[in-house]
């Protein structure tokens, strides 16, 4: 097949190339999706306000949404964990969520260590879904799509297109040492 494509000329060879290697438009779209997902997390860091994170009477914000894991149970063991461990010790959990989501927005926006942060985004989406999936007026597909878009960022190594990974990865790949090897893997 390769020989056939070569004999058929440049157009046939280009047709056989993966779109990300041959198309400027495809690379720009991957970069746009990465930035948009980063903005998603950035915007959602704006309503997880310390120090109470919505804990109070009546509950609001992050505390209220986390409590849905118990009120509108998705997965029994997770609901038990939230009821007996997370809600009684909410402030450290709130800080953990704020730092994780603010960092997701930060790293995905600039395209640094994108594959690692895409995995963290998949994990965080799963945690959010376990709290909010059965809450009133929630659309199940929104969480599925959120998970899948992070999977797509991971699969395409989206930081290599218009992101810092694209600038720094050649140095990481060319340098010896365990730490740069890890950076190259995370990009």
């Amino acid at each position: 097949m390769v020989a056939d494509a070569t004999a058929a000329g440049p157009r046939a060879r280009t047709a056989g190339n993966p779109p990300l290697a041959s198309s400027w438009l495809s690379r720009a779209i991957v970069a746009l999706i990465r930035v948009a997902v980063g903005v998603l997390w950035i915007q959602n860091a704006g309503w997880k306000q310390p120090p109470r994170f919505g804990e109070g009477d009546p509950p609001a914000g992050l505390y209220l949404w986390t409590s849905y894991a118990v009120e509108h149970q998705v997965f029994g063991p997770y609901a038990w964990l939230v009821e007996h461990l997370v809600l009684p010790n909410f402030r450290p959990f709130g800080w953990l969520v704020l730092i994780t989501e603010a960092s997701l927005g930060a790293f995905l926006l600039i395209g640094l260590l994108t594959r690692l942060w895409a995995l963290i985004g998949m994990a965080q989406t799963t945690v959010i879904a376990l709290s909010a999936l059965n809450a009133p007026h929630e659309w199940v597909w929104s969480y599925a799509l959120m998970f899948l878009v992070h999977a797509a960022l991971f699969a395409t190594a989206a930081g290599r297109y218009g992101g810092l990974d694209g600038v720094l990865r050649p140095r990481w790949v060319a340098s010896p040492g365990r730490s740069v090897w890890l950076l190259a893997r995370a990009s």
Partner: protein
Amino acid sequence: MTGLDRAAAALGVVSVASVGVAQAQDRYQVFELRSWSIAVATGLGLCAVVAGVAGLRWLAAASGAAFLAVAVVQVPVWGSGDNWLGGNGSTASLWLGLGIGLLTVGLADRLWPDETTSRT
């Protein structure tokens, strides 16, 4: 202009442009920028643009460190009753990204010398 310099300039442009993006209201508001935070985004953003255009890596690193510092300050200030900086958690997230990005760009040559160029 190298890739790192272009990255520094681009991060600066993002910061300056964020002042316009922050004018969106209600559900379309991505982050808050009021009072001092507008000066931070504009001033440090312009520094990053200059760093990129002039190839001044020390200025990129300094701008990045300043962005990181204001990001860290913004979170407790936002949580307190007196939000004198004028941003919110989203602003801190944006500045965290710009700070890490600019610091990485500014220190890249020291941390990871470009062996791909030196070999040729």
